[in-house]
């Protein structure tokens, strides 16, 4: 089972929940940081990083001696990554989305695949937990193609030896967030009952609902804010799987880099029952829903 931990609003406790679930998970697991712009999971799980590799995306390289300046490539490119101007052909690799269209199209075979570095993929272990993280290169704008490479690595790891995965997703509800959850079995939405938390939670629910995946909410900082969130979940039939109380001691433990499931037996119990709730929800959603889809 692959569980993604997403949120809408940033700073609601995604990484806290992902790290806590990982430490109490009782089956073989890989914890994955797909918040590639600002990865933080390693700060809490503190893995030994054993492997690091640069990840690249395909971009076109021009062989000027073959180019006839027909302009077909520049006409096709939707991202202004290749431009024909008279007897000049310019590429802007940082604009390229890696669709490969120009290379496939060029009638003179004047374009060949080159690369642009997107970031670095790290692998390691935190005790018995496998660990995988993508770190976007600072200055790189496109996280989705890089996230696809990290996900390919995850699939490779799961193919080598079967295990569950917990994915720490980026905040927001646009392409990077959707990319993080789209191939997972269940989405956990972490939120807080404040007006900002609720507004972004609703956006996340709207963005992820069309994916047809089971979803459950985790209410962090419960006791802070209003009832709107609870009413919304009731109306939409969205189960609240657990609540974590608003407590300065928890915020301070987090600020010291602690995994909060390890702060007290009671918090540990919270995450153990969250784990069971997640499995129940996945189980309940499995048979009927899939047959109709």
């Amino acid at each position, binding site marked *: 089972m692959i569980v993604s931990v997403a949120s809408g609003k*940033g*700073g609601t406790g995604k990484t806290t929940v992902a790290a806590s679930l990982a430490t109490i998970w009782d089956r073989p697991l890989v914890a994955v940081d797909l918040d590639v712009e600002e990865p933080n999971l390693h700060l809490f799980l503190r893995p030994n990083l054993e492997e690091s590799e640069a990840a690249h995306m395909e971009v076109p390289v021009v062989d000027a001696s073959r180019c006839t300046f027909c302009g077909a490539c520049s006409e096709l490119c939707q991202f202004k990554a290749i431009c024909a101007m008279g007897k000049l052909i310019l590429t802007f690799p940082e604009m390229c989305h890696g669709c490969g*269209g120009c290379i496939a199209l060029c009638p003179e075979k004047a374009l060949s695949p080159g690369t642009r570095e997107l970031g670095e993929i790290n692998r390691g272990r935190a005790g018995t937990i496998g660990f995988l993280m993508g770190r976007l290169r600072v200055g790189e704008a496109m996280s989705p193609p890089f996230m696809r490479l990290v996900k390919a690595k995850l699939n490779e790891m799961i193919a080598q030896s079967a295990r569950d995965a917990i994915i720490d997703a980026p905040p927001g509800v*646009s*392409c990077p967030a959707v990319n993080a959850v789209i191939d997972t079995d269940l989405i956990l939405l972490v939120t807080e009952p404040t007006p900002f938390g609720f507004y972004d939670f609703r956006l996340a629910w709207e963005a992820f609902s069309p994916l047809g995946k089971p979803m459950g909410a985790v209410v962090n900082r419960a006791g*802070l804010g209003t009832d709107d969130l609870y009413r919304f979940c009731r109306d939409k039939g969205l189960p609240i799987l657990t609540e974590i109380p608003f407590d300065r001691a928890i915020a301070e433990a987090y600020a010291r880099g602690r995994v909060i499931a390890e702060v007290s037996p009671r918090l540990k119990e919270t995450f153990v029952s969250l784990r069971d709730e997640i499995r129940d929800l996945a189980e309940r959603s499995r048979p009927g829903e899939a047959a109709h889809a």
Partner: protein
Amino acid sequence: MREIVIISGKGGTGKTSLTGAFAHLAANKVVCDLDVDAPDLHLLLRPVREREERFLSGYEARIDGERCTGCGVCASLCRFDAIREGERGYTVDPIRCEGCKVCVAFCPAEAIRFELRHCGHWYVSSTRFGPMVHAQLFPGAENSGRLVMVLKQQARELATAKGLDLVLCDGAPGIGCPVISSLSGTHLAVAVTEPTPSGRHDLERVADLCRHFQVAFAVIINKHDLNQDEASRIEAYCRERDYPVLARLPHDPIITRAMIQGLVVTELPEAAFSRELTSTWARIEALMNGIG
């Protein structure tokens, strides 16, 4: 005209709450919410919309089932795994479609249409603190960077038309495409951080990003009292890099109390927090004047 963007790297550090307070304190400005993906500033400023525009950006492919011969060339060329063969032949998954046009160009039956994508809306509004430019990307949509550029352009034009000399922007979390767009043409980036391992880590990455794009950078440490050691590490980092620390603000539930009332924190009476923010804003103005 000056332009400031409030960013953070990490989400949830208090960026929007502080931007709201600065919108209250600053004179002669246009406020602009560049977090088009999960915008929250309107919950504090309660804008009244005066103009609404559709944001059309990029394209998506759509297969015409009548003309499709089922050859599968499109699916074999798609790098985004967006074309699948199902019971009803080949279809494009709009969520995965990147809008690259490769399938359209190579379809031998010319069976794929390429349609402009409606990604969201943007607005020009009025608020109790002056004009505001903001947007809402449809949940799950793309091209947030382009929408950020549209908003900045609109905010600048509005400021010029109204004779205002400041554009105050609330940015998005992260360091990717919308954040990079929000930095273009900006005079000063103010990062709101918190003394946690994630806060410091993400601050360093967003600082590197600003250095990469040569944007002046200053720091506000919010929730300063959560972890003194981590706060000291952030201060040391800022000293080393010569980043001004504009404020050290306490972890104060007053921020949430204001939010629940749809107010910015400086509108609540008698708050020590507000006095702190008033001097913070004065420091930001002084810094901006120094940048020239």
